[in-house]
């Protein structure tokens, strides 16, 4: 699987967030590494997309699509969005 980065999440995130998300800053809850969402580690293709901290590898963001919903998980909080 090719290793990509958070730039590749731009389209899926733009579908559910009103601001451009790859330029947003994150702080990892595990190692406190901070950076822009564009620098997250991403592997595709996969059933969903997973963004991992480039510092420690912890999963920071998950996005899974079903025919009617998008599930976005940030940390331990899961959001279900109707699309």
């Amino acid at each position: 699987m090719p290793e990509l980065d958070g730039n590749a999440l731009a389209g899926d995130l733009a579908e559910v967030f009103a601001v451009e998300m790859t330029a947003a800053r994150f702080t990892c809850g595990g190692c406190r590494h901070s950076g822009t969402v564009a620098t997250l580690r991403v592997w595709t293709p996969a059933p969903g997309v997973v963004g991992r901290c480039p510092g420690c590898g912890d999963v920071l963001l998950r996005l899974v699509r079903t025919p009617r919903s998008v599930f976005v998980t940030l940390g331990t909080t899961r959001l279900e969005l109707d699309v």
Partner: protein
Amino acid sequence: MVRAALPGRLSWRAGTVSAVRQETPSARTLVLEIPDWPGHLPGQHLDLRLTAEDGYSAQRSYSIASDWSAASGQVEITIQRLDDGEVSPYLTDVVEPGDQIELRGPIGGWFVWRATQPAPVLLVAGGSGIVPLMAMIRDRGRRRARQPFRLIYSVRTPEDACFADELRRRVRDDPGLDVHFVYTRKTPDGWPTPPKRIDVATINSHGWPPDFAPDVFVCGPTSFVETAADILVALGHDPKKVRTERFGGA
């Protein structure tokens, strides 16, 4: 006061392939006509979705190669064929003018160059990582922008270089643009050095000094991006000024 309406949610639409152009034996440009395309910044992408008759669909993100001008209204993507890829062989070998493709965009807002950024620019491309950087070079040329640009472009062989003729022409015609090639497997005849990978000496000699505080854009495969970014930071460039994009495709 009523707040300005949110921009329409990013949605899939149909674009039409209006022309194709072979760039190298394994890379092809698709020229797309996309109704109501709002324009894009150099460095942005579009997502492209192919759906088979049985409903199976595959989605990929491609960097936009062209700069945007409302006058032309066209959007170009340049695709490198990956022999074991699921989507790229279709786009490089099968698609022809008149075909429709489902896409959405423009997307991304971090790996972009805006002509209002005053700093000099260093572009570092590995293979097909040239594509979004070419959009920046084209945008600068169309605007006659003054920021000095340097491109370091690593390719396996001279035949693998996309946009080689256009880059030569722009180095002649666009003041303040320099291009340096790195050949990793085979050099042109008479090239002063044997094939090599990008290294400290290359970036030191053909990039900008860190004191110039350039905006740096690095795009290529993961190992290339990590090598180049590590060298840049070791040479003293501010990591916050080094923007990277790992080029996948498939």
